[in-house]
């Protein structure tokens, strides 16, 4: 046990681990908070769609030789597609899931084709698909920290409205409130969170940060506030444990574990445990 602690201490000495830890905690927090609303609004897969757009945008940045500043390219593009996704849902015959499917697979295809114009599929691309929090640069971390703090602040300020627009959009509109404005707020905050989260979790796994904490806490919590707070806690705890395990544990084949995937697996474990807790408590009541 003491050995484990000293090992963790050893890893915390590295700046890249510190960076991953700080940025990762903040991003998991944002994703978990927004996730509650997205899951309840049946928009869970929006994370998937937008992260693939983020992948496409990163590919474009690579072609334009802007790899170091890729966040500055992908954030605006993803925010715009988030708007676009909402519009599709409201006004057209293509409904939510299909719209997300079109955008997500379309953007992935475009991104993959664009990458072949540069140097083909390499580790960089692999990092974008599966995440690599340990390769975040200093400026990535600063931007992530700044933007996640903005997301968190806006979430707190709009909390009551986000609740209302999640629970009952038409009541909100009918009583003279601008529900579409608050939907847009959710979409923009989600877009920003996803682009930042891609660095940590990768385009293919970022949805997990949005969905798992929310569904896990919905197993046991009875109010929106409790669900929100507990999913924030679950997200942060799972991130820290996942990062620690992926740093410390070495597989029998001699490799460390991929961080993003390890975090998702910890989330799955928490989900299963809380589902079991719910089963047991409902059985007891009967």
């Amino acid at each position, binding site marked *: 046990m003491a050995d484990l602690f000293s090992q963790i201490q050893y890893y915390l000495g590295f700046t890249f681990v510190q960076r991953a830890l700080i940025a990762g905690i903040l991003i998991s927090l944002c994703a978990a908070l927004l996730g509650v609303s997205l899951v309840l609004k049946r928009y869970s897969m929006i994370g998937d769609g937008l992260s693939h757009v983020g992948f496409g945008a990163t590919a474009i940045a690579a072609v334009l030789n802007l790899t170091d500043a890729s966040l500055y390219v992908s954030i605006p593009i993803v925010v715009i597609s988030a708007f676009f996704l909402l519009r599709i849902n409201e006004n057209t015959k293509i409904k939510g899931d299909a719209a997300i499917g079109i955008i997500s697979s379309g953007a992935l295809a475009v991104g993959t084709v664009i990458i072949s114009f540069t140097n083909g599929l390499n580790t960089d691309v692999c990092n974008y698909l599966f995440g690599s929090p340990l390769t975040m640069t200093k400026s990535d971390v600063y931007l992530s920290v700044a933007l996640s703090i903005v997301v968190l602040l806006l979430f707190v300020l709009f909390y*009551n409205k986000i*609740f*209302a627009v999640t*629970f*009952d959009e*038409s009541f909100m*509109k009918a009583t003279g*409130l601008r529900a579409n404005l608050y939907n847009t707020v959710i979409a923009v905050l989600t877009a920003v969170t996803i682009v930042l989260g891609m660095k940590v979790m990768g385009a293919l796994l970022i949805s997990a940060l949005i969905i798992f904490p929310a569904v896990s806490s919905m197993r046991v919590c009875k*109010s*929106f506030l409790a669900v929100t707070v507990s999913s924030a806690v679950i997200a942060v705890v799972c991130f820290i444990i996942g990062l620690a395990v992926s740093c410390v544990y070495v597989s029998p084949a001699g490799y460390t574990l991929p961080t993003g995937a390890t975090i998702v697996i910890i989330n799955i474990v928490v989900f299963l445990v809380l589902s079991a807790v719910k089963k047991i408590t409902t059985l007891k009541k009967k």
Partner: protein
Amino acid sequence: MSLISCKNLSVAYDGKTVVNNLSFSVDEGDAVCIVGENGSGKTTLMKSLLGLVKTSGGCIEFSGGLFQSEIGYLPQQTEVQKDFPASVNEIVLSGCLNKTKGPFFSKKEKAKAAYNMELLGITHLKKRCYQELSGGQQQRVLLARALCATKKILLLDEPVAGLDPIVTAELYDLIKKLNREDKLTVIMVSHDIPGSMDIANKILHLNHNGSFFGTTDEYEKSDFGKHFLGGGANG
């Protein structure tokens, strides 16, 4: 004094005109029931009054100091709400949002939510989770939320759908009390015509080929009323 008046109103739903050239007005203190068969456009008409659906012709006028932010609305339950993790208190409070200035609820608004929960007899459920409540309790919660949003007018969309007869009667009594004692104007969509007759002073009957608007007495004497009320008694 008239609160809402509709002139030659037409509303379309999914490209199909469901309400055609309809004129009626709702006065302060009225209890208007909108009845008619399924698909006759009752809910669509209500949504157009609420500004949720665009009208395709004619106009809806609010008067007598009525604004959109003073409408209380009891919608039909949505799929999303059935497994929604929210406490009763959170839902009722959210009705106050159209009055809040800042990002958070003030003491006054919290007091109003508490008052309305007391009025509807759901104070003891305050901390309970919405999805665990019975159908009648859920309707009371949504009604309390609607009361937080309004002092003047309540629009109720099928408030007793899916409730058992005892709970239905309780809810009708409650709506009647809000209309008679608390002086709230009520517009209610229902397909329970006998129940509506008890609450309403005016009936708006929508039908695919024409409509009726008038007092309950006039309705009973009209061909519309004879047909539907007679049908109700026999069936």
